[in-house]
């Protein structure tokens, strides 16, 4: 049995590496309070803008805060935001997309037109608009990313469900008068699980991407919280004088998103076979 679980990892190195990277982040974020040398907002006024050293592995920022600690704690925001936002997008998107595919005709037409209109905005613009008006907070960020992702996931779900809905076994179910809920939940959903899992993994990565971008634009969690994107934005001016204050949080973002990206690629390959 354990071998069966490991089999996909053996067949797709990308999946294995990605999973390892994501796991590393999960562990360090969860264990941040024990791993971090100090609290994320504790200032050491004796050590302002210090380069990385044995005492401060990642250096300190202009307020003397330990960058390593801030990066470790910063991972916890993403840990919260990305899965929650993806889940909202997935549930909503799958429901919308599958309904559009099942009911077809004008239902499909109306839903797709609306989704098109929403997707006529670049994602960042949409999130920026919404968060400016709602105000930046973790809850709002989760909600907005989830809502923005829903149309994209709905498209994937619709495309996959359309194939299934035309299959003979769905017609057989309709002939024996099964209701839409049964058909969608029992006949269709199990067969579009694959594309949805792949899409979900891709979206997890982009949720990290988007929340970091929103943080960078100052629309997410507010200072002095140790959000990675926010840290890059705050220390942008120090790029030439104290690059470590920017590089490490940027590197952390890169590490996590690349991890998800590799995972998604591996899953997509396995799915394709």
């Amino acid at each position, binding site marked *: 049995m354990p071998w069966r679980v490991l089999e996909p990892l053996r067949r797709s190195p*990308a999946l294995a590496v990605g999973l390892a990277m994501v796991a590393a982040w999960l562990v360090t974020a969860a264990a941040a309070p024990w791993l971090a040398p100090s609290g994320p907002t504790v200032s050491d006024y004796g050590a302002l803008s210090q380069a990385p050293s044995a005492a401060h592995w990642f250096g300190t920022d202009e307020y003397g805060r330990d960058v390593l600690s801030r990066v470790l704690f910063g991972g916890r925001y993403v840990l919260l935001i990305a899965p929650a936002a993806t889940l909202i997008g997935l549930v909503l998107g799958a429901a919308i997309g599958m309904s559009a595919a099942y009911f077809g005709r004008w239902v499909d037409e109306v839903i797709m*037109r*609306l989704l*098109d*209109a*929403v*997707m*006529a*905005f*670049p*994602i*960042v*613009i949409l999130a*920026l*608009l*919404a*968060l*400016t*008006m*709602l*105000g930046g907070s973790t809850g709002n960020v989760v909600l907005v990313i989830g809502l923005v992702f829903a149309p994209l996931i709905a498209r994937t779900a619709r495309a996959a469900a359309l194939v299934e809905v035309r299959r003979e076994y769905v017609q057989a179910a309709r002939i024996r008068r099964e209701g839409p809920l049964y058909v969608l939940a029992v006949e269709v959903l199990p067969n579009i699980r694959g594309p949805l899992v792949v899409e979900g993994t891709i979206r997890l*990565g982009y949720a990290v*991407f988007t929340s*970091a*971008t929103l943080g*960078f*634009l*100052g*629309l997410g969690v507010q200072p002095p919280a140790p959000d990675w*994107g926010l840290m*890059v*934005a705050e220390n*942008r001016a120090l*790029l*030439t004088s104290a*690059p470590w204050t*920017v*590089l490490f949080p*940027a590197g952390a*973002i*890169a590490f996590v*998103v*690349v991890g*998800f*990206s*590799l995972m998604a*690629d591996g899953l997509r390959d396995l799915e394709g076979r």
Partner: protein
Amino acid sequence: MTRFVLRRLLLLGVTLLVASVLIFLMTSVMPGNVGRIVLGPFASDASVAELNRQLGLDQPAALRYLQWLGGVLTGDWGRSLTLDTDVLPLALARLGRSLLLAGYALVLLVPVAIAAGVAAGRRPGGWFDRLASVVGLTFGAMPEFVTGVFLIVGLGVGLGWLPVQALPDEGAGLVTWLRHLLMPALSLVLLLFAYLFRMVRTGMRSELAADYTRTAVLKGLPRRRVIRHHVLRNALLPTITVIGAQLGWLVGGLVVVETLFRYPGIGSLMEYAASNKDVPLLAGCALLITGVFGLANLAADVVYAWLNPRVRHALAGA
């Protein structure tokens, strides 16, 4: 063909109309009180009410929407709350600079991604395919500001090859412009490369496996001719639509890249409007960007229809 373009324009109009409703809803009707958002928590209730009245927010939403829409259609996009100027001329001026940056990025991106996709798709699993895939996966997942930071630290600060400021001095020559814009453009290109590359590669692979490719091989055609004459035109056609769709990412990326590199385009203007709660400016920028994005998509669809014999004939018949 003309009818097709007209139909698509009409559809674009509908989409933009819905989009304008969305923008309006988000900027004017959503919970929260615009006057309060603008003036902040410490302003007095009276001044909040006064601002709301000035903005016409005491009137019913539908009426306000119609007034706003009327203004938009007649060129009166309102006035910025924080910069003492009309929204439209300001946004248009900034848009010009952004289009320059976006165009630059596209010119770099499209040929490279297509060439790489074709080369990788010809030999799936080969060293080049793996290399390009890893590069794509890595940079395609990273936010532009992260890539930008790495570029600045590497090429700008570390090696000193490129200027860190995106905007050159007044009256600089073209080469200087291009040098200054190279890093911002590169951060956009690296993000978009993955997707376009993957689409071209997938297209190549599936067309190489298609029955008609087998027919061409079994006709005794040399491999070069099979690829150039038979496979490429089918594999590359869908990428046109992909490029159209990518413009959305490009435009979204502008907000981030222009902010990071302090380049005065429409993206950084939007960031400014957002952080200063300048609602009319924000709404105007969003509408303009959406319109440009829609037009770009439409152009891609038209080119696609025109190049695809099947669609072209259907249209000519219609």
